[in-house]
């Protein structure tokens, strides 16, 4: 019951932010970035946290969505919302196709093959000049068209779009986690051979979650480039894919709030701290190792155990 109240309070707070932070647009900007980094993290959490699939090329699929969206919007002059849906579907399709290949491998092999596909997709984004405008980035991507008088240009309004999309992603995650589909995913993570012996078509379920995770990443990618108004390969590089893993793990893999906590810590903190950047990443690296050693359940695990200790 307590967690339900906490959820409602957090939601109210999030919706009230634009009003509270009238003269603080930078806070809105940071929160928007947190949402935009949390969305792909939700997709990865479904794969890594619930199903145990450690993909090291996750942001490359966000890139498929982002660049499909950019080409449809700028070159094909398609309306924003249609291009967004097609971008997300493209990312999902890419996830299904490439996922089906990667999922023929297990444990170590799987990780390395996802890393390889991530790098291959990056070089396509970086080199295919006439479509993706290559390394200099794909400029001129517009913000969403006004929806019944509600324009998404100003920061507060884009914040609601980003927050709404993040809530959609978390709702999908919540729905999957509680559904039979989610239960099968968790079974696959615990003991794939036993799950198969109990009638689970492992390949089908894992491809489905790979596609779903990539589609959600695509949603994050589309809004990311729409917010920045430019699509650049650097946003979908191997380093960003490793960041996504870091966000999921620090937040708490396999927990509903994990991606949100991870994104807040990983994106929000440095924006505000602005500490010298080499040391920031040294700290994050060491933090990751310590979490693996002492708190594999990440922040949400720590909070849960602390909460249990308080209640008892």
């Amino acid at each position, binding site marked *: 019951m307590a967690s339900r109240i906490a959820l409602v309070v957090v939601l109210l707070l999030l919706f009230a932010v634009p009003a509270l932070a009238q003269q603080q647009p930078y806070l809105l900007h940071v929160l928007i970035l947190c949402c935009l980094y949390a969305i792909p993290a939700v997709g990865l959490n479904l794969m890594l946290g619930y199903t145990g699939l450690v993909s090291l090329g996750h942001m490359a699929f966000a890139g498929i969505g982002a660049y499909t969206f950019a080409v449809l919007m700028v070159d094909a002059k398609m309306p924003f919302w249609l291009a967004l849906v097609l971008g997300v579907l493209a990312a999902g399709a890419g996830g299904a196709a490439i996922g089906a290949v990667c999922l023929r491998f297990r444990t170590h092999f799987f990780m390395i093959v996802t890393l390889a596909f991530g790098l291959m997709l990056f070089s396509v984004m970086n080199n295919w000049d006439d479509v993706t405008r290559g390394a200099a980035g794909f400029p001129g991507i517009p913000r969403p068209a006004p929806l019944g008088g509600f324009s998404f240009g100003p920061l507060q309004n884009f914040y609601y779009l980003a927050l709404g999309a993040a809530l959609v992603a978390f709702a999908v995650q919540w729905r999957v986690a509680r559904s039979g589909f989610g*239960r099968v995913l*968790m*079974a696959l993570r*615990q*003991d794939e*051979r*036993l*799950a*198969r*012996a*109990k*009638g*689970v*078509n*492992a390949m089908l379920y894992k491809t489905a979650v790979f596609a779903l995770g990539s589609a959600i990443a695509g949603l994050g990618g589309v809004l990311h480039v729409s917010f920045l108004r430019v699509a650049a390969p650097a946003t979908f590089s191997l380093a960003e894919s490793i960041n996504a893993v870091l966000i999921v793990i620090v937040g708490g893999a396999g927990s509903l709030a994990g991606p949100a906590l991870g994104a807040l810590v990983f994106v929000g903190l440095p924006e505000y701290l602005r500490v010298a950047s080499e040391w920031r990443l040294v700290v994050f690296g060491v933090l990751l190792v310590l979490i693996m050693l002492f708190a594999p359940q990440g922040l949400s695990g720590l909070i849960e155990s602390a909460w249990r200790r308080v209640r008892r």
Partner: protein
Amino acid sequence: MISIRNLRKSYGGIRALAGCDLEIAQPGIYGLIGPNGAGKTTLFDVMTGVTEPDAGKVLFDGRDVTRWPAHRLAAFGVARSFQECRVFPEFSCLENLLFGAREPESEALRLLRLINLDQYAQEPAANLSFGQRRLLEIVATFMARPRVLLLDEPAAGVNPALLELLLQFIRRMYQERPLLFVVVEHNMEFVMALASEIVVMHQGAVLERGTPEAIQASPRVMQAYLG
């Protein structure tokens, strides 16, 4: 119900199955015994779609299921337990039973009471002792209402008290719903007490077949074991 025709399977130089043939017509509890390396577990794995044979056929109720993957066989009504006792550690005992089950929750609770694990219904399976986990695994196989149930060394690592409980449970389940049991086992006392018919395997093929009493008296079986 089951017919195995001329199954062959080898790992590198080792011929695990060398032309194994077996016909089982109607439900019953069959014990599958034989010295180590006789090919028992390999036969098991082939019958449950875990490994593919090099040659030969497996038929269930006349249908050729040789190349079927494990999940398709499970859907077809073939359930199994594992030699190394596999349960979902993070799921509670109840959740373990309900996973992929064709029986309602009430049946799950009834079965838990039968093996007096009902007070652990909400407890994650990881917290149980090895013997209790073994019982939980076997009980879970019944939840899928299988037509064929293959038990891979169910007695291994289970203390005598729980063993007796396991024996009673399997007999009771067989009375409630006669299905085809195949039990691979080294614990002679357990399998002889449980099985109505014994199949002896040796060097990848079926050596002898008969009632427990006949098998215990057969010189060929003695010779195969003592070498």
